[in-house]
């Protein structure tokens, strides 16, 4: 319904989604030196790359390891647990095994840092610029700091980072999280596994039977805007070959087992979570830290079934780029030679494009090409990587750092491609399907023939849009616009289209949806428009009177719902009159005070105090207090007219004061009778509204402080409601067809995105690009 304008504020979701901000809260915590010295300090960069290594050292911390082991090895039900696992598992891997020597420089350095008692302040070595920025923005979270146990902090330190910005191009971006938000979505956290989560989202609103749609079953239908998908952000400690060592923060992999002999054996790993197709495009980069010249490393994507003792690209449902000979391989098809082998210090990027279901690779920031087909179309896929040579190692960037390749630009390009494809779609005749009541001759001629008909031609689609626009204008009572629109439609119309069913008179506004004669329709719009305008102007009584004359059933419908709402509004309007007068009095007093100062007449001390208040105490009491309403204002009035205080009021002020008191009496009397009438109604929605409405008397300036009840915007909303109620009483749809069309399109697109159609998340609803 269009009475919910506030919803629009929920559209721009980008990064302010509660989820990501909560992630950043944690992150902000860790960048501040609250960790005891020596606990977790970034080491100096190990390679030429400027970004400091996350702290491998933290694993050595006994207490933390113990704490996390106690969590056990359960499935990754929550971010805390999933990342908690990492230190414990990694520590169980023989870390000082002989093969470790190849990795020596790192280990040595980490030990060295470990030994250092004093460390430079953390902020100077904050891992990335983005983090530091976010730190500043979340200072407010500081109060939470002491509550967070250290081990949680340490974990957040290694995994939490803002969603990579290229993903903001997805219309479902608000669902994509580097961490599953901790606080909200209790129901989601109960999900046993990530794959179950993915299953659930695809099935989110799919119901097997009609009766599943009953209210009882509705809680199981997930609110779409609150679904969360976890992005792959680290290599899994479980889903890997045992001889691969995963660093604590999950971004480094090193082969520490026996060097494989021949092509058959290998050691591979995949990420903890599959890639949500809602990304549209997902991309990650791998920095080859060390690789023997001829050894094989393959980087790409795998389905869940691919074995860890094989290289990705050799197993069914895996696709990868090979470093030794520079080919892209998948068992589904022969290798595609890129002729670009890679080795130590190369940066290899892998992307999956869910709009084409193709994989693309980059090398050192340059796109190599798009390969394979139907990747990730039927099953979830994971980033995946395989090694053969002991000692080979890589470091992965899942978006924690800026990418070497300009992925953002790439995604935007793809978005344009998608949009152009959509705009090249012919308009099927079926969108006019089953049009039962043929209102206009021109439309009838379109809709009579269905089936395998050619797409709508330009004139036909324009006629369809014209009709949508017209019915929209009529629905909302934009009568003048509707009239001149229709006039112009006819004059522009190419005359070979039959318009015989229309009355000759150009001034008629034809009602769609099988409404009555055009003349009556015209009057109808005018009346509706009048009522809507009266409500918007705050002339509620006039609106009610007109309704009673023209649309009496509307007032009675739904147990007088609209009538009550209008009367509540009337009460608000009466209160607004009093506050307006109050403001006037205040202004007059200010003015008089100034004048008195100017004329150097010292004000009487007793009155001085009084005047600084915006008004007399007893009057304020009238507004707020629980004093018997009917008596009070009149007694007050007689007070003020007779008492000695009165002589201090200027005539102007007196006059306004009188008006104020009248207005107040009126408001209170009205409120009382309304309250009596309303007493028996038990509808919670109305009761709530009732309470809030009467609450406004407590505020000095309801327009400011209770804008949702008192403001102009709430008048407009009520006017809309009245309009819809009238339309409903006439058996017409509460929404104009155009709005339904919009909602239908948006829902289809979102649903497609949830079902893994990447192109769908790269579309924008048209209004997003206006202004």
């Amino acid at each position, binding site marked *: 319904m269009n009475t919910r304008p506030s919803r629009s504020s929920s559209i721009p979701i980008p990064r302010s989604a509660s989820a990501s901000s909560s992630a950043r809260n944690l992150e902000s915590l860790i960048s501040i030196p609250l960790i005891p010295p020596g606990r977790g300090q970034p080491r100096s960069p190990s390679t030429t790359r400027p970004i400091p290594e996350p702290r491998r050292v933290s694993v050595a911390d006994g207490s933390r390891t113990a704490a996390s082991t106690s969590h056990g090895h359960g499935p990754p039900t929550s971010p805390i647990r999933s990342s908690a696992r990492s230190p414990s598992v990694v520590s169980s891997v023989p870390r000082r095994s002989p093969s470790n020597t190849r990795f020596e420089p790192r280990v040595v350095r980490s030990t060295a840092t470990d030994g250092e008692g004093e460390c430079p302040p953390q902020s100077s070595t904050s891992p990335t610029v983005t983090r530091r920025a976010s730190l500043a923005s979340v200072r407010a979270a500081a109060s939470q700091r002491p509550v967070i146990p250290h081990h949680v902090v340490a974990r957040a330190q290694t995994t939490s980072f803002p969603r990579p910005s290229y993903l903001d191009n997805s219309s479902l971006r608000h669902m994509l999280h580097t961490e599953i938000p901790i606080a909200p979505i209790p129901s989601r956290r109960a999900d046993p596994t990530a794959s179950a989560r993915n299953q659930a989202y695809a099935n989110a609103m799919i119901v097997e039977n009609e009766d599943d749609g009953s209210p009882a079953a509705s809680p199981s239908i997930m609110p779409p805007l609150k679904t969360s998908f976890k992005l792959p952000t680290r290599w899994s400690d479980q889903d890997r070959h045992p001889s691969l060592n995963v660093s604590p923060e999950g971004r480094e992999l090193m082969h520490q087992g026996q060097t494989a002999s021949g092509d058959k054996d290998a050691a591979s790993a995949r990420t903890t979570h599959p890639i949500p197709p809602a990304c549209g495009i997902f991309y990650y980069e791998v920095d080859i830290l060390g690789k023997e010249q001829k050894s094989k490393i393959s980087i790409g994507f795998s389905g869940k079934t691919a074995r860890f003792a094989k290289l990705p690209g050799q197993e069914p449902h895996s696709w990868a780029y090979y470093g030794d000979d520079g080919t892209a391989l998948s068992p589904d098809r022969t290798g595609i030679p890129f002729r670009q082998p890679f080795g130590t210090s190369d940066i290899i990027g892998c992307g999956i494009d869910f709009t084409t279901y193709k994989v693309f690779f980059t090398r050192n920031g340059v796109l190599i090409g798009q390969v394979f087909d139907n990747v990730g179309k039927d099953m979830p896929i994971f980033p995946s990587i395989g090694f053969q040579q002991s000692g080979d190692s890589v470091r992965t960037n899942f978006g924690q750092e800026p990418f070497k390749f300009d992925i953002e630009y790439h995604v935007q390009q793809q978005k344009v491609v998608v949009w152009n494809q959509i705009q090249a779609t012919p308009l*099927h005749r079926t969108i006019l399907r089953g049009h039962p009541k043929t209102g206009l001759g021109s439309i009838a001629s379109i809709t009579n023939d269905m089936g395998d008909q050619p797409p709508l031609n330009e004139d036909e689609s324009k006629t369809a849009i014209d009709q949508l626009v017209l019915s929209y204008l009529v629905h909302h009572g934009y009568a003048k616009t509707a009239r001149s629109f229709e006039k112009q439609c006819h004059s522009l119309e190419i005359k070979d289209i039959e318009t015989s069913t229309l009355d000759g008179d150009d001034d008629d506004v034809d009602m769609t949806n099988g409404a009555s004669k055009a003349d009556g329709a015209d009057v109808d719009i005018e009346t509706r428009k009048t009522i809507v305008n009266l409500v918007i102007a705050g002339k509620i009584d006039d609106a009610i009177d007109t309704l009673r004359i023209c649309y009496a059933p509307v007032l009675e419908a739904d147990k007088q719902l609209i009538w009550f709402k209008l009367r509540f509004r009337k009460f608000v309007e009466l209160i607004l009159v009093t506050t307006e007068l109050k403001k006037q009095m205040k202004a007059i007093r200010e003015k008089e005070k100034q004048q008195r100062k100017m004329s150097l007449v010292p004000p009487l001390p007793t009155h001085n105090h009084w005047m600084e208040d915006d008004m007399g105490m007893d009057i304020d009491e009238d507004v707020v207090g629980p004093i018997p309403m009917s008596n009070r204002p009149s007694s007050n009035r007689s007070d003020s007219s007779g008492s000695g205080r009165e002589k201090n009021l200027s005539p102007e002020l007196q006059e306004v004061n009188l008006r104020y008191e009248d207005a107040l009496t009126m408001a209170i009397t009205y409120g009382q009778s309304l309250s009596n009438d309303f007493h028996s109604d038990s509808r919670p929605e109305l009761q709530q509204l009732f309470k809030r409405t009467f609450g406004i008397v407590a505020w000095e300036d309801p327009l400011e402080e209770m804008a949702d009840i008192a403001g102009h915007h709430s008048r407009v909303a009520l006017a809309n409601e009245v309009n819809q109620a009238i339309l409903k009483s006439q058996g017409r749809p509460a929404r104009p067809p*155009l709005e339904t069309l919009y909602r239908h399109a948006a829902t289809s697109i*979102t649903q497609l995105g949830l079902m893994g159609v990447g192109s769908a998340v790269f579309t924008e609803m048209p209004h997003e690009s206006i202004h």
Partner: protein
Amino acid sequence: MPPPQQRISKDAWERRLHDVPVTKADLNRLIMDYLVIEGYKSAAEEFSQEANLTPPVDFESIESRMDIREALQRGDVEHAINRVNELNPDLLDLNHALHFKLLQQKFIEFIQQKRIPEALQFAQEELARRGEESPEFLSELERTMALLAFDATPNPPPAIAELLSPAQRMKTAGEVNAAILESLSQGKEVKLMGLLKLLCWGETLLEERAEFPKLNVLDGTFSESSRS
């Protein structure tokens, strides 16, 4: 392909519809966009009053745009060119392709009116020069010149004949309209049309994956699919 056709009930669908964040103001802007681009000047004026919307362009430009479009539709290219120059003196200088289109249309109109000698002279003076300057226009130029050759033939090839059809006028008028809109930094494609296409595209893809209520666009009603 995963063919398991899942079914989305009308109730579930309606709930989703209800949750779509769209406001009357959003839709009003879509309407205004349509009125402006399609040149419904007086309607746009009324609408900006009634819906309390600031117009995105000044209404006079709508009027001259429509004047140009109508001139082209009735074959008065000369008038159209003059009005374009009045509206935006730089437009044709900067947009060679557009200028060529207009000149081409003018040539076609000469042929339509059987003013062959003038057509020839015009081609030699104006069109040929542009073809030389910008080779990308050459093939189009040649196609247009073929009109002279087929002038007397009762059944010219379709590719040539279509130049003489009303659709060609509409096409040129549409292109000029779009170019002017672009120069006013106003969107040139009607967003409502984009919305309809999005709907078609989305429904088609979704039909492959699930059963869901289909919309009759014009009256806003849903029909559940026949399969039960």
